[in-house]
């Protein structure tokens, strides 16, 4: 066990995968000598050589498109998209190709690739270094979507994603990169995809969050606890396929739900969660599920803290929901 922050834990997962499986290979912009703009891959090119840690030309189409080809030959490419905001030039390769290759070959070919990308606000990145596009990928059948909140989970989930035979989008909360430290094993342990985690048991409200906003949800829960509102906080960890069971059993207990995410509200994953909860636990609901999310605007700069669904916005939602 070593104390690691999120960057170190992810690096540790990549190093472990590179060591244990000759088929694993990394590709992305500036991931070599520079070690990535967030230094996640620092030192890996030196250790594994430029044939396994590839600096890519400035083309997300190329990075994702060639990764699919590598995966079709049996490699396990892990691509880095420098910011989630820059995944869109390569969007077509993900939604038209990676997502559909297995289906359109009835399983004869498949695409075991991972796309790592830092997402979300919190570093004063403005419109193009802050976005949270997870909903677009959740809407695309054939993709899996993961979003860890802490170093331990991140390492285990990333290793499971690399071992997974389907394409996985792995969203890394850049706001958490260096903000949280915890004990992480040196071994290549796995945290299985598809399992949510109750990080704070509670009886009165179910609060769903992931990634960086998990901490805000938690902080808000602690804050309202002082006013006697007992919130159960669930870290979704894998966004899709979703661990609906954990959510529904919590909601059946609490009857109240608050969902938190950074992405714009409209057609965000929160809407889907509301719909699923209504479909599976309607008669248990004592209040309308509430969404605390980014606003339906491009991501702003100066007022980033008012845009994000931070604890100061979650608290009133919890209190209102508790009192409904």
């Amino acid at each position, binding site marked *: 066990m070593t104390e690691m922050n999120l960057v170190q834990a992810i690096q540790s997962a990549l190093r472990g995968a590179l060591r244990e499986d000759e088929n694993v290979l990394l590709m992305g912009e500036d991931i070599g000598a520079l070690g990535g703009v967030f230094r996640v891959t620092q030192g890996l090119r030196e250790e594994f050589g430029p044939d396994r840690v590839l600096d890519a030309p400035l083309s997300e189409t190329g990075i994702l498109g060639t990764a699919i080809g590598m995966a079709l030959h049996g490699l396990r490419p892990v691509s880095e998209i420098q910011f989630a905001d820059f995944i869109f030039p390569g969007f077509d390769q993900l939604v*038209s190709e990676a997502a559909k290759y*297995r289906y359109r070959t*009835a399983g004869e070919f498949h695409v075991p690739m991972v796309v790592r990308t830092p997402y979300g606000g919190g570093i004063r990145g403005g419109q193009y270094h802050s976005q949270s596009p997870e909903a677009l990928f959740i809407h695309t059948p054939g993709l899996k979507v993961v979003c860890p909140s802490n170093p331990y989970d991140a390492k285990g989930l990333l290793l499971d994603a690399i071992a997974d035979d389907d394409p996985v989008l792995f969203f890394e909360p850049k706001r958490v990169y260096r903000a949280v430290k915890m004990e992480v094993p040196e071994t290549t342990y796995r945290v299985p995809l598809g399992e949510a985690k109750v990080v704070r048991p509670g009886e009165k409200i179910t609060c769903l969050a992931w990634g960086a906003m998990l901490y805000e949800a938690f902080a808000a829960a602690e804050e309202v606890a002082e006013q006697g509102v007992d919130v159960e906080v669930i870290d979704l960890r894998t966004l899709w396929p979703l661990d609906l069971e954990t959510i529904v059993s919590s909601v059946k207990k609490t009857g109240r739900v608050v969902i938190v995410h950074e992405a714009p509200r409209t057609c965000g994953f929160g809407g889907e969660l509301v719909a699923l909860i209504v479909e599976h636990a309607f008669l248990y609901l004592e209040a309308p599920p509430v969404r605390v999310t980014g606003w339906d605007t491009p991501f702003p700069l100066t007022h980033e803290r008012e845009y994000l669904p931070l604890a100061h916005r979650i608290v009133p939602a919890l209190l209102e929901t508790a009192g409904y």
Partner: protein
Amino acid sequence: MQVIRDDGSLDPKLDPGLSIDEVVALYKAMVRTRIVDDRLERTQRQGRIAFHVGSLGEEAAIVGAAAALRDRDWIVPCYREVGALLWRGYPLQQYVDHMYGNAGDPVRGRQMPDHTFSRAKRYLAVSAPIGTQIPHAVGLAMAIKKRELDECVGVFFGDGATSSNDFHAAMNFAGVFQPPVLFLCRNNGFAISLPVERQTATRTLAEKAAAYRIPAARVDGNDALAVVAAVREGVQRAANGGGPTFIELLTYRLGGHSTSDDPTVYRSDEEVEAWRNNDPLPRLRKHIERCKVWSDELDADWRAVCEREVKECVRHAEEKPASELSAMFTDVYAELPWHLREQQAQALRGPRAGAEEGES
């Protein structure tokens, strides 16, 4: 570049040196491809299959290139290259079953006709979005290079695809990483209705390769032996660690873009007629006839064999039931997640489940 001269003799300087048996095999495969095409087009016109996209006039470019690749090499198709897949021995019945989307369809009725693939034949999957396969080919070749295998990749695409994002990315990555890949650009004159002269301002497509420092050749794509020679050279380069090659195969789409198209709206009969006189089949036939290994009689026999074969396949295909409804939900992921299990169950207990398919 041209190998077969007008009189059927070969230019000795460029002759790829195939044995005459190999040349006959190539010719026969081209004829077979044409006959399968013709039959499917008629079948479509009769409303028995929904759609077909053929290779009329482009057989030399397609089968010739396939013949120059080695069995261990990968083919990454666009959508007109089933001739290449059949050349590799893919069962015709399986292809026709796919055209019908029946229970024998390898893709279980999930794709439009002509979306073939075969892991056994190292033939990747046809995909409708233009250009997307080109980076796959480069990635495949990068994997081959990393694994130090003696394989290479030939990727087909059309003149229209040179405008795609994917073409640019793939060519640039190939230039930078130097993997063993051949870019086989079928310049058949059109992207649906758009003539290549309005697709791009360059006079040739081959000259685009220089923008990525990739060696290029421009060959008469209706001359099967010129295609073989050029592709062999590319394979050789790849095998020797010389990296990528771009080959412009100059040909012409004699038919419509697909069975949904009406080409008379955007091109003249005269133009088509001129190209009809440059049909790759008679050109190669002239050579083997000159070599006295082929004749009208042999030709008629072979055509009859092919006709019978494809008719049989169509007959069998029509007898098979539709693909299963439950197959709609599998292969989205390696394993069926809870939500698809739920949805599958819902669909299967739906009122129309199991009923005959109506017209949509």
